[in-house]
């Protein structure tokens, strides 16, 4: 009975993995067949795990807290949840994507739903939705389990130490651990040091589960994460402290019913404090304090049911988020200058989502998902509100928005083939930055950005399709494409009448709606197991973005390729790969983007697992950027260079 229950509990994930829109990277535990994981294993940073997902790129402002970009869309168009919990970053300069507030040790896996076919808790997920699945020991596991891992990287003297332990029984489980990560300034290819690229981070977590009755379970989660002394070489400021406190309590009922399977209700609360710091920078014209705060409290309630060929999920969610940020500037000698940059915006959002996976005859499935959400926003800070009214005299201090999405995907898997295509429509409300941000300096295009409370919701129609041909078990060839046709695309637009605040800024941009815009993503991939111990795989991708004047949109990946050979010999697994980007021909000068040169690097890694009695010891080692190339990618903010040659070793020990 219990085993069955667990199987169903886990099935919510595996149900989803049948289409090309869903991708998952495994952070801990043994990776299943075909499952992705970082070559650095558990010791890899969240950012390195994210980089393994298809459709995902990362915008880098330093060596820490990279911003996930899904289908060439940044945070505004991507939903990120932690086990279904909403959490919002606290930095007006996007120095802290919410993925930076967890550690690898906290996670089981990262699940990506590409495009509009999002997970039930996601809202505003035009580009996609990421759900960071927390690692829970679960019931009926080992009475005691210990995990320890450590890693070292030569470039930047990166040190990683992690330890966690778990206990589990039929009625109770608990797991918890701590993680420490430290990095000095790294060196770019060629050996020059990149100043202000250091960081340090500590993280502690615990998960508790208690079986109240045979069919009722209570689960609690607690994560504390604190990054200090984080350098951002691409920006004018660093971060002295980025701190998160994430907690939840969930109740889950297991039905013994022909239709209903499970019903989970989770209450959660999280709080982020983000403190920027420019005191260590030389030649600062005006010292500034820029703290930001975000707190979110919410709940979701998810019911799963199956009848006949239908697997249905119904989800209700509600959250309340507060975002406040301000800025104080200290000109030498004169009075400090103060402004509110996020006017303490309270957002109450509630929505209902429905997902139905229908199994049809002849290996066909249809997955339909839909969500409708309503949002109330209020500007709680008078000073910030009055400041914005200078630019928008008719604005109100409260707004209501309704958003929704609906998407369907059809999959057919005849022998040797997998075909799928899907479509969807979805909308998103403007973010707090887009609607109410106040003189937020963007170092990418050197403009000060002002939010626009008059913005309309942005919406998009998505079309996607994929085909995989697998004539034998040793060869496969696949193609994947999607296209997003936007209406009211939100982007910063020149406002020549306004004067910049930041001393070196080029001018002011105010967020506005473009009548339409388009983003397309395509990729081809192939895999060939030439010999039982030798596999080659390759992937090329191409994307394009166009605004309403058919000019390129910024932050769209140029032509990219990866080619690698995996060699597996006994317990040793090695991989050598080449990856690179072609010249960025389609860059967006109109939006302040500069052309990025082509680059290619080679990486080598090896994994060796040594079982010692009941325990397993895993060694991982590798060289990144073997030839010490100096390069930066299109997603490197202000073209900061990537790491040069980096040798890493790490060791994981499971007891």
């Amino acid at each position, binding site marked *: 009975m219990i085993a069955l229950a667990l199987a169903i509990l886990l099935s919510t994930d595996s149900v989803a993995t049948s289409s090309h829109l869903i991708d998952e990277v495994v952070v801990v535990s043994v990776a299943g067949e075909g499952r992705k994981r970082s070559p650095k294993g558990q010791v890899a940073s969240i950012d390195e795990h994210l980089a393994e997902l298809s459709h995902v790129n990362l915008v880098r402002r330093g060596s820490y807290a990279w911003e996930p970009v899904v289908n060439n869309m940044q945070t505004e168009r991507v939903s990120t949840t932690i086990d279904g919990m909403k959490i919002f970053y606290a930095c007006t300069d996007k120095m802290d994507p919410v993925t930076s507030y967890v550690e690898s040790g906290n996670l089981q896996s990262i699940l990506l739903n590409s495009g509009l076919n999002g997970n039930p808790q996601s809202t505003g997920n035009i580009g996609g939705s990421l759900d960071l699945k927390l690692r829970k020991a679960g019931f009926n596991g080992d009475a005691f389990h210990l995990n320890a891992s450590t890693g070292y990287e030569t470039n930047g003297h990166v040190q990683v130490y992690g330890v966690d332990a778990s206990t589990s029984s039929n009625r109770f489980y608990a797991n918890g651990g701590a993680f420490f990560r430290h990095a000095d300034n790294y060196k770019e290819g060629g050996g020059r040091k990149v100043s202000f690229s250091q960081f340090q981070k500590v993280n502690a977590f615990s998960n508790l589960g208690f079986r109240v009755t045979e069919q009722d379970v209570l689960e609690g989660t607690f994560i504390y994460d604190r990054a200090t002394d984080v350098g951002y070489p691409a920006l004018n400021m660093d971060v002295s402290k980025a701190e998160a406190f994430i907690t939840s309590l969930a109740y889950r009922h297991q039905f013994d019913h022909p239709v209903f399977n499970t019903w989970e209700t989770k209450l959660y609360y999280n709080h982020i404090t983000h403190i920027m710091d420019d005191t260590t920078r030389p030649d600062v014209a005006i010292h500034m304090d820029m703290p930001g705060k975000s707190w979110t409290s919410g709940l979701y309630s998810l019911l799963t049911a199956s009848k006949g060929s239908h697997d249905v999920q119904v989800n209700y969610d509600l959250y309340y988020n507060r975002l406040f940020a301000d800025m104080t500037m200290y000109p030498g000698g*004169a009075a400090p200058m103060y402004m509110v940059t996020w006017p303490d915006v309270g957002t109450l959002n509630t929505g209902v989502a429905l997902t139905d996976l229908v199994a049809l005859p002849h290996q066909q499935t249809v997955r339909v998902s839909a969500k409708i959400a309503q949002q109330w926003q209020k500007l709680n800070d008078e000073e910030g509100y009055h400041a914005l009214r200078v630019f928008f005299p008719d604005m109100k201090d409260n707004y209501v928005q309704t958003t929704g999405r609906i998407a369907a995907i059809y999959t057919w898997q005849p022998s040797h083939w997998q075909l799928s295509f899907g479509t969807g429509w979805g909308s998103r409300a403007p973010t707090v930055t887009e609607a109410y941000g106040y003189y937020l300096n963007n170092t990418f295009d050197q403009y000060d950005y002002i939010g626009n409370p008059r913005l309309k919701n942005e919406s998009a129609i998505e079309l996607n399709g994929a085909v995989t041909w697998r004539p034998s078990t040793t060869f496969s060839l696949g193609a994947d494409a999607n296209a997003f046709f936007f209406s009211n695309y939100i982007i910063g637009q020149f406002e020549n009448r306004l004067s910049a605040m930041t001393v070196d800024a080029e001018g002011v941009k105010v967020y506005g709606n473009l009548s339409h815009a388009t983003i397309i993503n395509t990729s081809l991939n192939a895999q060939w197991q030439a010999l039982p111990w030798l596999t080659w795989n390759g992937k090329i991708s191409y994307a394009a973005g166009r605004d309403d004047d058919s000019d390129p949109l910024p932050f769209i990946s140029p032509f990219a390729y990866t080619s690698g050979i995996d060699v597996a010999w006994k317990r040793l697994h090695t991989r050598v790969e080449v990856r690179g980007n072609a010249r960025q021909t389609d860059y967006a000068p109109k939006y302040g983007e500069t052309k990025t040169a082509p680059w290619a690097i080679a990486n080598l890694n090896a994994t060796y697992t040594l079982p010692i009695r009941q325990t397993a010891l895993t060694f991982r080692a590798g060289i990144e950027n073997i030839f010490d190339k100096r390069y930066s990618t299109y997603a490197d903010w202000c073209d900061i260079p990537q790491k040069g040659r980096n040798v890493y070793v790490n060791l994981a020990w499971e007891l």
Partner: protein
Amino acid sequence: MKLKVLALFLAAVTLGLSSCNSNDDENGIVIDGITITDDVDCCSAEEALQVYKFLQTVKIIPELSIEVDGKYNVWAYSQSGSFHTGYNEIYFVATKKISGNYIKKFNIKNLTPLMHMVKMDMYHSSPASEGIESFNDSYLAVQRGWVSFSMPTSEAGDWVLSYDVEVLGSSAQVEKTAIMVDALPEGQEWVKSFKANDKTYYLSIVNPTDFETGKNTIEAYVSVPGEDRTASFGLAKEEFTIEIDPRMPDMGNHTSPDNTSLVRQKDGSYQGIINLTMTGLWRIHLTVKDTKGDVVAGGDDLKDGYSSLFWDVTL
């Protein structure tokens, strides 16, 4: 002390009642040091209470207060109990000595600041209000005037202030009484002058301390000396338009949109709209134009491109 507590308590109770009950028992109001009688010259209990409460928000200037005919007292107040360079408001009340109650009608005239320039042994006055009036229907018994001191007290010179008063047929004069005018802190310059038509005009900003981030009304007076420079400077007869260009010198001369020029109002003051995008030092560059639209003062192109005529306001 006990009486005062009782007074405040009763005042609070009375205020609470007055909003819902029009038949107040006026004898219920007790104000410290004031005896309410049926004296027609004086305030009713409610009026007296309002005056009393207003006076709690300002500070007395003892040296400018005077006794009239042994029967009345006239008291002068300012926001802080002292004076500073630029525009200052002065409030007056008159009381009957016998009851301590506020007298409803009295006249203050010839409010005159005078500076003695020590080195040259010369005297000059400064902009001041022409009339002293009840400034609000709620405070009939409070009269308000203003003085805009063109410079602070310093080794170079001292200020004196004088005025005449008439209370219920009796009159008295506060003769040139020495006062201290404090310099404004760094980043505050609230009075400026310009020369035109062979005259020197003074621009006094009225409400810089009210400014907040966002949209603000900006108010000012344009004053000009008469023949006698030792008489207070009255409002200029000529009409001007004062264009404003607020800038933040510490932020690369950042400015704000949608500011409107100060134009003359019926009461002789000038008013416009100033938008301030943040706190800090704002230099409000001025261009003064006459009714034909010709530049009278300011608006000159310095090498940084901004008018040399300006007010500084730090908020």
